């Protein structure tokens, strides 16, 4: 039986993120850059039907997407796990007003992390999100991407929940450093 994780290769899953979000009628993408999101960011920045907003810190994305939703539009927040801590108090906006919130978080500080400075926030990210009432799912293999984002988006936009899909370091691959 074929391994389902080979249905998409390592480069395809990054494009899949963009294509899945496009099927969800996402009009706004707020992000702090991460290598794992680089393909989606590039495609969204080139997409004239989507407003791409580069943030100075991840917490800006939560009120931005709240404002966009007030105006009638759906959006998504892309960040790395180190940015989760920056969002904690701002999540009280989502919690009080029940704004839909869809976040895609590339993980650092787990399997094969060479920079231990990433570990404290990376290891705490999912629990911290859960403490603030954010629902979380982990994608470990490329074939899970579409399904997990679709399901999270349903709960966010149809049920006014805060939802995060964590893209694991195993999925993204070991970060290589060239001199």
């Amino acid at each position, binding site marked *: 039986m074929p391994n389902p994780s080979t249905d998409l290769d390592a480069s395809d899953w990054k494009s899949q993120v963009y294509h899945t979000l496009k099927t969800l009628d996402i*009009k*706004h993408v707020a992000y702090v850059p991460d290598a794992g999101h680089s393909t989606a960011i590039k495609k969204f920045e080139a997409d004239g039907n989507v*407003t791409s*907003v*580069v*943030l*100075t*810190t991840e*917490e*800006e*994305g*939560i*009120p*931005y*997407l*709240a*404002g*966009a*939703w*007030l*105006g*009638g*539009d759906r*959006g998504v927040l892309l960040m790395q796990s180190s940015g989760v801590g920056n969002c904690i*108090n*701002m999540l*009280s*906006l989502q919690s*009080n*007003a*029940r*704004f839909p919130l869809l976040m895609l978080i590339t993980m650092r500080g787990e399997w094969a992390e060479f920079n231990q400075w990433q570990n404290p926030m990376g290891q705490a990210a999912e629990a911290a999100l859960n403490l603030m009432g954010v629902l979380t799912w982990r994608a470990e293999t490329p074939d899970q991407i579409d399904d997990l984002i679709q399901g999270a988006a349903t709960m966010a936009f149809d049920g006014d929940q805060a939802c995060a899909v964590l893209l694991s370091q195993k999925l993204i691959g070991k970060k290589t450093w060239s001199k």
Partner: protein
Amino acid sequence: MSDNLLNRRDVVSELLIDRADTLVVTGLGSPSYDVMAAGDHDLNYYLWGAMGGAAMVGLGLAKSRPDNNVLVITGDGEMLMAMGALATIAVQAPGNLTIAILDNGHYGETGMQLSHTGRGIELDRVAASVGFDWTARISDMAAVTDLRQRIHARNALNCAAIEISAAEVEKVLPSRDGVYIKNRVKMALGQTL
């Protein structure tokens, strides 16, 4: 700051004259009370927390509703927490967004401690340096009227720091029910919930 400081309620009332379909976002604390005191409105989005979030809610509204004027009314302390957001907003540069900072140089909700603006930081100059189309430091009512006209002109990204008195005024409290306020704005904009 000049000697004859403006009254915050007078400033906000002047900004909201003939507001029509202007969307208003308020920063937590006194700016929310000021906007409520000027008259509750379906197109007001009041924040009671999420400090540092007001300007970015305004940006999200401005980008999703390009045909509406969007006015953020917030305090110096709330805006200081989001100086990076001024850079984010300047990169987007929506021509329908105005940020009006009610600047009394103090943290009014917590015991009137001196803020950074009370120690000399000028937020309008921060906005100018990151590339806002128009910025001003306002200390008289004629300039407030001019700012109101700029909001309705909808042709520039504006930021004004308005020097107001730190004198306490009566608290006029808007609803703290975030879901209600959210749904009220969406319904007023013709959206189905």
